[in-house]
């Protein structure tokens, strides 16, 4: 039971991360390597600049129903800003150029945080009530894990409803499949791309919130480890395919947790090697990803 919840909650993080990357890739064919730094940034947005080991949370007094929108807005805002300031100028550039630009942007964000906060991890107490365990079918599960999983499922349903039921969602799906054709039907390119960036940034912020609450520390590298797995999930899922990204995210989470428990003790430190090994196997047999996305050839 504990293993199942571990797998689902880790998978949730990967799935949310992969979704954020896939959304932007879908409309722009941009592999956004700055995504991990958006995660860190949105949580550091809560803090006063300082180099102390204990974070000074200026927004920490906020009740949860204000705190969460604040963090999400932080992520969405930074993400949209990066589109307006940086990526918009690369619309007609080739994907490799855009990828390098996103790398550079990621470093700019990371060093900006380094300047204000130093590289020391800081302890932070966000939503402390959530670390209480709850009992589910005889197993003691941290409440936070349950909420993480529930929130992820809620986000997935909300996102699906948004994409399927709203006119903006329809425009985004059309644009993801064939951007030029969508524009020839009057779909506004900038609005759709900014919408994708805002959603993606909000997803990144959700990850930041969960990570900070889970570990009780924040540091400017915190986004990086989740992001690596999330990238892999987007690729395994089939670049640009949203269901694929979610599925692969959960699979990767499950694979990590399962290997942690079934591998012989001596092999456990090398767990990631086994996970990545499995990734290579998947890619050998399904190079197009688990669920291949349509129309990945077209770009703005």
């Amino acid at each position, binding site marked *: 039971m504990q293993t199942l919840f571990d797998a689902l909650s880790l998978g949730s993080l990967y799935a949310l991360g992969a979704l954020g990357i896939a959304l932007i890739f879908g409309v722009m064919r941009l592999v956004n390597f700055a995504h991990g730094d958006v995660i860190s940034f949105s949580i550091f947005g809560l803090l006063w600049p300082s180099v102390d080991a204990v974070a000074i949370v200026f927004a920490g007094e906020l009740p949860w129903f204000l705190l969460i929108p604040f963090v999400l807005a932080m992520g969405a805002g930074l993400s949209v800003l990066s589109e307006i300031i940086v990526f918009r100028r690369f619309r007609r550039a080739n994907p490799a150029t855009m990828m390098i630009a996103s790398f550079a942007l990621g470093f700019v964000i990371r060093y900006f945080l380094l300047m204000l906060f130093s590289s020391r991890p800081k302890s932070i107490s966000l939503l402390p009530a959530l670390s209480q365990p709850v009992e589910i079918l005889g197993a003691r599960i941290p409440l936070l894990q349950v909420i993480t999983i529930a929130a992820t499922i809620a986000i997935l349903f909300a996102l699906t409803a948004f994409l399927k039921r709203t*006119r903006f969602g*329809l*425009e985004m*799906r*059309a644009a993801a*499949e*064939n951007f*030029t*054709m*969508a*524009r*020839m*039907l*009057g*779909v*506004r*390119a900038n609005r759709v791309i900014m919408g994708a960036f805002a959603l993606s940034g909000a997803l990144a912020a959700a990850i930041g919130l969960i990570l900070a609450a889970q570990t009780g520390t924040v540091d400017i590298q915190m986004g990086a480890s989740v992001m690596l797995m999330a990238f892999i999930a987007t690729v395994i899922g089939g670049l640009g395919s949203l269901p694929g990204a979610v599925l692969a995210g959960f699979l990767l989470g499950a694979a990590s947790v399962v290997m942690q428990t079934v591998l012989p003790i001596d092999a456990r430190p090398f767990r990631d090697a086994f996970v990545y090994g499995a990734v290579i196997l998947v890619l050998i047999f399904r190079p197009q990803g688990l669920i291949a996305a*349509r*129309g990945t050839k077209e770009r703005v």
Partner: protein
Amino acid sequence: MSLLALSNLTIRYGRLSAVRNVTFTLTEGEILFITGPNGAGKSSLLRAIAGVTPPAGGRIDFAGQDITGRAPEDIARMGLSMVPEGREVFGSLTIEENLLVGTGIHAATRNWRSRAATELEAVYATFPILKDRRHSQAGLLSGGQQQMLVIGRALMTNPRLIAIDEPSLGLAPNITDQVYERLIALRSHRALTLLIVEQSSTRAQLVGGRMILMRGGEILLDGDARAMGQSEAMQAAYFGYGEH
């Protein structure tokens, strides 16, 4: 009144020029075929008009406004709808969703929802087959049905001019007949202006109307399709003898 006017339009891909100094005007309600062999620059011309490929020189006016270099979505919103070569349906979307993509154009106006529903019914009345299959994936349709879908999709934006690139491509002749039948009917009861690109001139001569014959990026002939018949210049354009 002239709806679309091109003057000295030049399109280049790198150092290669695809279209050179093309000038013509299209009157409201007119039907114009642009024909010519492969590589004549027909598709490039349409892509420039739709704002997809910015021209290297010259000017395009639509409905009295200069649209040279404007974004495709702005041009679509002004009432110039493009049906590109190869149809380009959104294969993962349902038929109805395909049709609705373009209705965002009316989103600013009040009651766009009911307006979109009215447009939808009108398109379904023209193409009943689309209504029957409205919830199936557009990628599963046959070529002829896809062609009807993309024409319907263009109509949903309520355009003044529809530009269609090779509607007969890959279709059986009797299906092509059906597509043209609907187009001609639409033109008369919606006061549509049509700009149709076809490789062969036979369809233009069958339907009638004006025809521009292009070759090597330039206009060779411009006149009544039927009168042009099998003139010497036409033979020259397709088979390559003559001065070119």
